[in-house]
Structures are given as structure tokens and as C-alpha cells.
């Protein structure tokens, strides 16, 4: 099965929280408001919502490495 690795850049992040709304099981916000991941990799149907989070992120702080 394909596994997708999730990379986030908390320095770039502007805390819009779109990723948390779209995929709360994968992304969270620290007390500072910036992105953190709850899962480093996803597979199966979760890949779709993670791609949606990448597309919605206003600061391009999430990237994916397709395995």
C-alpha cells in the first residue's frame, strides 16, 4: 500500500488552522498556534484529506512525500 509522508514547516506557518479543520486526526496546533503533526505518515483514504489540507494551506507549510 502507498504511504504518504507528511512534512510541515512551523516557521512558515501562519496559524490559519485550515489543516486542523480538514484533517484533525493528522494535524494539530501548538499553544503558539502553529502546525504540528499527529501522524507522520498516512495511507488509504486519509491521503485524500491530507492533499486537501495541502491545497487549502495559505502559507504552503505542508508538503507530502509520496512513498
Amino acid at each position: 500500500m502507498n504511504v504518504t509522508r507528511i512534512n510541515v514547516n512551523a516557521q512558515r506557518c501562519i496559524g490559519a488552522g485550515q489543516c486542523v479543520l480538514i484533517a484533525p486526526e493528522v494535524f494539530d496546533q501548538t499553544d503558539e498556534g502553529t502546525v504540528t503533526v499527529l501522524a507522520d505518515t498516512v495511507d488509504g483514504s486519509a491521503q485524500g484529506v491530507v492533499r486537501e489540507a495541502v491545497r487549502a494551506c495559505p502559507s504552503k507549510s505542508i508538503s507530502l512525500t509520496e512513498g
Partner: protein
Amino acid sequence: MPTSDPISIEFPTRRRGQLSPPDEYAELRARPGLVKSALPNGSTVWLVTRHEDVRTVLTDPRISASPTHPGFPTIGRNGTVPHPDQIPGWFVAYDPPDHTRFRKALIPEFTVRRVGELRPAVQRIVDGRIDAMLAGGTTADLVAAFALPVPSLIICELLGVPRTDRELFESRTQVLVTFTSTDDERDAAAQDLLLYINKLIAMKQRFPGRDLTSRLLRAGVLTPKEISGVALLLLIAGHETTANNIALGVVMLLLNRQWINAPGVVEEVLRYLSVADRVALRVAVEDVEIGGQLIRAGEGIVPLGASANHDEGTFGHAEQFDPSRSARHHVAFGYGVHQCLGQNLVRIEMDTVFGTLFRRIPTLELDQAVEDLPFKYDGVLFGLHALPVRW
């Protein structure tokens, strides 16, 4: 670099009775390059209409959000972004790195978790306004009785404005958003609000609470003067925009009742209406190519959010109101570092409003034909001056 002369067109406006964006946008998106247009004040700007190009404009470091640069566009009086040295803390007018200090100081206050804590207060405020409407008879102006007071009261909650002061706060904010207010009345109301906010800050310094104002003071990253500018900005940015989304969203749902309880309603209302279509004004500070067109340093740029959000290349059957679509990548809140700080609070407000209003008043209907409603066709923000309803 393309060299052909761009055409110049009249600034597009919405058609009477129409909730969708100006018809011209579709033609502009289909043309190669960009077009020039004259703003009502006579200055010339570049109109950017495609989703990808709008996102590029809002993220390119050669393009600035600061009105201190020569050539920065202005749309009407209300659209004039204050000069940063007029209101310290008016950080929508700052570029990185100055902007970054403000954004970083504020994002902990607007995380999904933090704004979620406001949900019970939002529900209480929404129910309170519905109680008042129902007690007042079987008709109402939904803008004056509901859409304007709800976000204003929520901002009071956020900032920690005591209940006894909310009437003063509310009355002055109403002046700012009322169509018939004169310039002098607006200036006086803004002045009163700034004085009040300064008083609020002094009060929170002595008696801190659990509100945003107190927390910003405690954090000490921003000065009290900057916090007062931030508070005024949050009020102005979060009030009429949200009110317009509420009032127009109710119209959309009354015209499309089958979607009333659909999960994607909030996102689709935001995308479809794009009330802040012309808000994100920019200027090039270096030569930059956008959408195949060379923009020179010092030239003004208007990225049209409503056009981006109706781009067929990005949103299939874009002209249809379809809450079942995935609309999350819309630019109704802008894009890039200036994307709306309060967006997740707005989502909670809209979700609570739509979920509560039609449940508590299931017979709600328009009391005026859609084409006769007093839309804000020429305003900086798209909205309604009034919304007569009955039940």
C-alpha cells in the same frame, strides 16, 4: 515578457438582484494576461481574476500590502486602509517582517481549539437575538435585528467588553456600518471607539480577565498602544464582513432550502458570495510578471477574490451553489500571510447562525422579492443594507 498593450475596462460591478459576482469576471478569466481598470477615484489598477494568479499576487514578496508605497490603490472612503502611523497595530497594512510580530502574537488567540471555546457564548448570543426578534412580532429587518448585532456582541465577548458597556460599543459600531452615516459621524464614531478601547485596555491592565485583550497585555509582545490598534482592527474586520455573510447566507439558504442542514454550507456560502471581493488591495514594489503580464513597480493591483472563487478551472460548475463540493481552497478569507485571522471564529458564527435560525424559526421567509432587496452593489463589501423577513 509579453509586450501587447493590455485593454482597459470599467471597474466591474454586480448586476441588480444577483448574488453571484459580476458577469464580466468570466470573460476576464478567459482572456490571456491581465486587464487594467480605473477605480472610482480615477487611479489605474491591474485586475487579477484567475484563482492561481490571485494566490500568486497574495504571496509574492515583490507585492506589498502597505499603503505607504506610492501607487497603492484605494477604493472609496471606507476602503482606504489607514496609514500605519495613524493607527499603530493596524497590521493588515504591514509587510513581513513587521507583520510577522503581530501575526505570531495573535495566532495563539485564534487557534481552532481556542475559538472553539467561544462556541457556547456564540450560541447564547445567537439565541438571545432570536428571542428578541420573536418577542418583537412576526416581521423584522434581519440585518439590523440580527446580522449586525451578533458579530458585534461576539467581538465584545472576545475582547472582554463588560456587559454594561456593550450598548455604547454597539451604537458606535452601527454608525460605522450604516450606509446613511455622514463622514463626520463615522469619524466621530471611530474616535469614540478608539477612546473606549483605550479605556478598556487601562481597565484590563488593572483587572485582567480571561479575554484576548488581557492575554495580549500579559504576553507583553505588543505595546498597549499597538493592542488598541489591533482591537479596533479586529472589530472593523470582523463586524460588517460577518454580518454580510450572515444576511446574504440566509438569503442563499431561503432560495435553496434543500441545503439548509447540509454540512458544507458555511464553506460554500463563503466561496459563492465572496463578500470581501475587493478588499485585498496591493501594489508592486518591484517589477513582477503575473498571469503573463508585466506589472511595473509602483502599479496598483486588485486581486478579485470573488472571481478566483468562481474560476471554473478550480471549482467545477462554479456558478452553482453546491454545498456538497469541496470548497476549502477558496480565497474568501484571502490567502498568504494576511489570510483572515478570525476565519475560524467566523465559521463558528455562521455555523451556529444557520443551524439555529432555521431550527427556531422554520417558517422564516423573505418579505421582499430578491431583486428588490437593497444590496450593497457599490460598497467595498458586498452585502445588504436591510433584509425584510417574516415568519
